[in-house]
């Protein structure tokens, strides 16, 4: 039976033009592994949106990273002030991973 350890999974919904900035903040927090997922649309206080690929500012991506508590905290603290103004959505939760040293 393989051993598992607990890590944090952070998911951030971010506008496509701002992804580079989130990646930079993650790297500053010591996070080097992440995966980007596509999205189709959604709704929130800013109304509905759907990715039409025509307008230059309307696609959103999901930035996902698995990391340890300390780095997760560092990234969350770095992003918190931007959440409101940049329209980011940040969610985190506990997950089990196999290769502890990787995260």
């Amino acid at each position: 039976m393989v051993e598992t350890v607990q890590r944090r999974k952070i998911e951030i919904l971010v506008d496509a033009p701002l992804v580079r900035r989130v990646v930079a903040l993650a790297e500053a927090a010591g996070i080097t592994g992440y995966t980007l997922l596509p999205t189709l649309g959604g709704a929130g206080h800013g109304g509905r949106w759907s990715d039409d690929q025509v307008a230059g500012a309307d696609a959103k991506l999901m930035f996902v990273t698995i990391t340890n508590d300390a780095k997760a905290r560092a990234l969350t603290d770095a992003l918190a002030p931007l959440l409101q103004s940049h329209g980011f959505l940040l969610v985190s939760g506990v997950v089990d991973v196999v290769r502890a040293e990787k995260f």
Partner: protein
Amino acid sequence: MTGGFEALLSPMILFFVLGAAAAFARSDLSIPEAMAKGMSLYLMAAIGLKGGVQVAESGFTPDMAAAALAGLALSFLIPLPAFFALRRFGRLDTVNAAAVAAHYGSVSVVTFVTGAEVLTSGGLPPAGYMVAVLALMETPAIVVGLWLARRGAAAGTQAKGDLLHETLLNGSVVLLVGSFAIGLVAGKDGFAPIAPVFDVAFRGVLCLFLLDMGLVAARRLREARALTARLAGLAVLFPLVNGTIGVAIAALIGLDVGTAAAFGILAASASYIAVPAAMRLALPQADPGLYLAMSLAVTFPFNITVGIPLFAFLASRMI
């Protein structure tokens, strides 16, 4: 050229109307985003190439320099009165007013392309160098918009280099300018073997793209919560005023009718690709729902249906 308004019954415009009607009726008709993006890239490459080939034929002319300077000046200046109108009459805060103003100083490639097709089929093709003028007009307004925003308040910490980079190397600008250069190098003979794709197919693809633009614009209008009646009014007034000024300036510097009409169309048009992308990066506090609603959901349809024939008519009167 009263014939400009007949263009309203051309398939291009009718496909735009079909898309808008479908979206208003809440049909589930939709174009896959990858296809929309692909068509948009194709249109930019095609118009860049064709412009370059035409300039390779005609050579550089004094007209061209005059049009380029006038275009640059308009892109720098239009945001200023627009900003004040948006602040006073539109009741926007500084940041949002600055962001919107930048859109109107910049230009819309598809508005230009549709206008050029309408003018060409009316026997008044604009000069090939107008593609270069289009490219020149894309970015100055962004600089002015940001300056307007910063005056008001410390606008946060932007990576300046990042922004300049994003603006000058925005994919659409690079593709347009690059294709123009390729057209210049290739000339008429080099273009011939690829003309079936980039010239002959152009208008058909534009029809499908305008179908999508109709869908996108109308859906956005329906969802536009931030759009007040005052702002919608400005989104119609801006193209009217800017386009008329554009045609007048073009007449003054001695451009021919088709080219002057195209110049007016550029002045009237508002960006919805390069500027929103730059604003999202540089002024993330500004509301994209607002500036896209104005430029894409009001001004774009207005220009496609009313603006283009109107500026063609004005140009034929003034020149």
